[in-house]
């Protein structure tokens, strides 16, 4: 099933909601632009991955904001998300505190994990957000969160995210089957950005749509072909409602776009379509749509950008002004 023309009214996509989707995407993008700048600011001369205020691997999700914004618009902060090595857009769309997230990325004591985790290991119990650097191994934990939510008698749900590459990992199969057998309230999301680092989807995946795979678990599956936040929103609305109603899991694959490299420092020499990529940026195209629908104008746009900018500036400032952890505490938190 390919969804391209959502019926907005039916799913509560009024003007306010549409602006909300836009604002979420802008916030995520601006945040990652800021991290991008900070990351590269002090890696030189040349590029040394271990150097600078933000060292280590950095996987940014620019271009994939429609997935996070469209899915998370349906979630409450007591719903859970297990995200991937590319987690920021989902964290932001789900409402993880920007300052504590930035502080974690800067390795500060005030970070979500007191600097222990880093950008691939963000844990926020307040919004039940987590992520993992091991491909698709975040899926199973979502099952357990969903299980606990049911046992606690709530209608809370869990969202599990992986990529097109990750959908070929064993954990994918086991998780979908178990969630279906036990009718767990989970929404499985695949961000298909055409690439797993340098390996194109065509070389990794025997089937053109992972929605097909949902049928292998007797589960609804949908592939959203356009990297369009409203199409994602619509698909997610069904999947989330189904999960909340106790009707079991669903799978949503979104054909999205990785605007930048797999990680920072990736020269992307393997990527033939690189030049065209920037023309497919989903944020300007959504802006155009909102403008043509008369919902967005310059002043509203500016306000959204300004608010995002301020929040991010504050977050980065908080991170930078926070203390680094004391080396003598390196062994704290191994055991509770």
């Amino acid at each position: 099933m390919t969804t391209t023309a959502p019926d907005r009214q039916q799913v509560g996509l009024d003007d306010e909601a549409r602006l909300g989707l836009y604002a979420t995407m802008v916030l995520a993008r601006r945040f990652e632009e800021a991290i991008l700048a900070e990351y590269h600011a002090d890696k030189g001369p040349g590029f040394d991955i271990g150097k600078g205020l933000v060292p280590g691997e950095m996987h940014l999700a620019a271009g994939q904001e429609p997935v996070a914004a469209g899915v998370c618009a349906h979630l409450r902060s007591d719903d859970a998300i297990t995200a991937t090595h590319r987690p920021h857009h989902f964290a932001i769309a789900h409402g993880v505190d920007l300052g504590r997230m930035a502080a974690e990325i800067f390795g500060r004591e005030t970070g979500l994990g007191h600097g222990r985790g880093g950008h691939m290991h963000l844990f926020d119990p307040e919004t039940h957000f987590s992520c993992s650097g091991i491909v698709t191994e975040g899926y199973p934990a979502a099952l357990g969160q969903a299980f606990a939510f049911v046992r606690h008698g709530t209608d809370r749900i869990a969202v599990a995210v992986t990529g097109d590459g990750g959908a070929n990992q064993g954990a994918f199969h086991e998780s979908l089957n178990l969630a279906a057998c036990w009718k767990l309230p989970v929404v499985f999301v695949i961000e298909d950005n055409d690439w797993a680092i340098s390996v194109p989807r065509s070389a990794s995946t025997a089937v053109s749509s992972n929605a097909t795979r949902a049928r292998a678990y007797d589960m609804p599956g949908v592939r959203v072909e356009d990297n369009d936040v409203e199409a994602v929103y619509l698909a997610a609305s069904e999947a989330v409602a189904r999960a909340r109603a106790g009707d079991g899991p669903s799978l949503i694959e979104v054909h999205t776009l990785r605007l930048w490299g797999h990680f920072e420092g990736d020269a992307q020499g393997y990527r033939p379509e690189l030049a065209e990529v920037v023309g497919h940026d989903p944020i300007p195209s959504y802006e155009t749509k909102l403008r043509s629908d008369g919902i967005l104008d310059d002043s509203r746009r500016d306000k959204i950008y300004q608010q995002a900018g301020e929040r991010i500036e504050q977050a980065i400032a908080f991170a930078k002004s926070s203390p680094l952890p004391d080396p003598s505490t390196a062994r704290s938190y191994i055991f509770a």
Partner: protein
Amino acid sequence: MVVTESTVEAGLGGTHRLTTARAMVEAIEIEMRRDASVFYLGEDVGAYGGIFGSTTGLLDEFGPERVIDTPISETAFIGLAIGAAVEGMRPIAELMFADFMGVCLDQIYNHMAKIHYESGGHVKVPMVLTTAVGGGYSDGAQHSQCLWGTFAHLPGMKVVVPSTPADAKGLMASAIQDDNPVIYMFHKGVMGLAWMAKNSRAIDLVPEGLYTVPIGKAKVIRQGSDVSVVTIGLSVHHVLDVAENLAGNVDVEVIDLRSLVPLDREAILASVSKTGRLVVVDEDYLSFGLSGEVSATVTDVDPTMLKMPVKRVANPDTPVPYSRPLEYAILPRQDRIEAAIREVASA
């Protein structure tokens, strides 16, 4: 002088005689009654009652909502336990044989064991992973391993290995109550199963009611002055057999570690500083494991404690062979243990 300590530590009220398997189940029952967030999941843990009797009777009392058979999807259901623990439940997940860790180790050591640290202490993972270990009954190279050295090497999880019914109960209760992930490894040979060779101590007195044994405390099972034998699991019983046999000749002190993580280094040092002679008996692989760590515990502090070379009686880095004479040759059985003790005691 030979003193064999009672297996039973202070409990509340009386005692009764149970097999190790039954004692383990008793602890789970009590915790499940006390705490609605405890549940047990794994393969064949429901109607079957656990291949090695680890859940016998639980389904009848607690029903399929709390004693749950899973698909053969260890990554998914152990990960499920992790997620449920993160949300405040206290799951017990069973990996049928430790030998199968390879299909789900990522969940165990990269997630279960690391989430608390990576989250800076904000997220707790209070769960127990139970698993059967050990050989001696011709189950071959993929169903006879101990592998506790592997789990213990990877930080962030506690690793316990009971050898007696009372410890099986007390360590299980502690494991469930612990706010950290605990791997609970039960040797098939100590469980007292009807269909497997039993040692004489597989049925023993167990305190009734609530009973815990602290995790991380070794136990001097037998006091002695000539040689310290440090061991764990089924080997505890083989060592006791030998020690009793040698009594009058060599006065053997036997230390049941009971837990690899935390490792009770004080207990090791106290004994070796007394005897000056150390034998480590470990059914796991020899190299890069428990036996080396016990030796290093001494050399970290004072190598001159040792009057003789250490003898390590372990699996000599050999896949466990199927055929009985071969398997018996690589297991740390009484013959090898006795020879090692005699040699260490000889000068």
